């Protein structure tokens, strides 16, 4: 047959391997893409001195269900990087709490020197908004630091 003797038996000179040298570039591209696009937290930390407690426990709750309310030493209240007046908290929190399917947890992050009156007012605002699950965010205190005091 003419076919067997013809050009069909000629070997192709093109490489049949997938070029693997750019695989690393693809991997790094993915790595850098996800590093850049990942957002961890919506609100920035406010400058406060944390209260310390020995009984500090980790909160087993999804990050998106936790709302941080910051109370600074001067008594100003911050939520999601915005300053709020104390009376504004109930009307702001109530719809957020309803939207979260009543799963929202409030993390009160107050400066250790803030007067308790502020915290009490904040609690009353939260109760009026229907929120019941609250965490007083604290740093874990070791017995060593307590004894030094």
């Amino acid at each position, binding site marked *: 047959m003419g076919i067997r003797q013809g050009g069909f038996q000629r070997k192709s000179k093109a490489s049949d391997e997938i070029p*693997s*040298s750019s*695989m*690393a570039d*693809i*991997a*790094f591209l*993915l*790595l850098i893409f996800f590093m850049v696009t990942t957002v*961890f937290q919506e609100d920035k930390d406010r400058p406060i001195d944390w*209260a*310390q*407690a*020995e*009984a*500090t*426990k*980790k*909160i087993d*709750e999804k*990050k998106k269900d*936790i709302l941080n309310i910051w*109370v600074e030493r001067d008594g100003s209240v911050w939520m999601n990087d915005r300053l709020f007046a104390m009376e504004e908290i109930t009307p702001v929190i109530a719809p957020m709490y309803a939207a979260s399917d009543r799963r929202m947890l409030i*993390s*009160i992050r*107050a*400066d*250790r*020197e*803030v*007067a*308790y*009156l*502020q*915290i*009490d007012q904040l*609690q009353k605002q*939260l*109760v*009026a908004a*229907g*929120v*019941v*699950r*609250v*965490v*007083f*965010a*604290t*740093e*874990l*205190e070791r017995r060593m630091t*307590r004894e030094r005091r």
Partner: protein
Amino acid sequence: MAVLNNKKSKVNDEIPSASMADIAFLLLIFFLVTTVFPKDSGLAIVLPEEAEIVEVSQKNILHIIIQPTGIVDLKRGESTQVQQVRPSDIESIWRQAVAENPLLIAAVKTHPDASYKFMIDVLDALHLAGAIRVSLQLFEG
């Protein structure tokens, strides 16, 4: 001699790049697995529902009054006797008191001018002692 020097090496002089991807993925997976995000931590409490007023017999209440100076006054139920303690003493006091009366409720009354940290110290001691029935109030009068 000259013959020897002219001989070309047959060893490939390129760094093998096929395994670079594996190294990159190894690093990626290593950091994915070892990254620990700081978890929120604190003292969890449950606030009362609005308009939820529960009448409690005075004999089941341990009044813990926090003064602006950080001194804690203890008042048991109906008695007018006031005992001054440090926040760190409350843990053992609570354990003892709750063993005598399992229905005991801690009423933490903080003076409006007292620092938040004093209230946290008391709440911390109560949490350490395993107290669940805690009421946070503002001290009036």
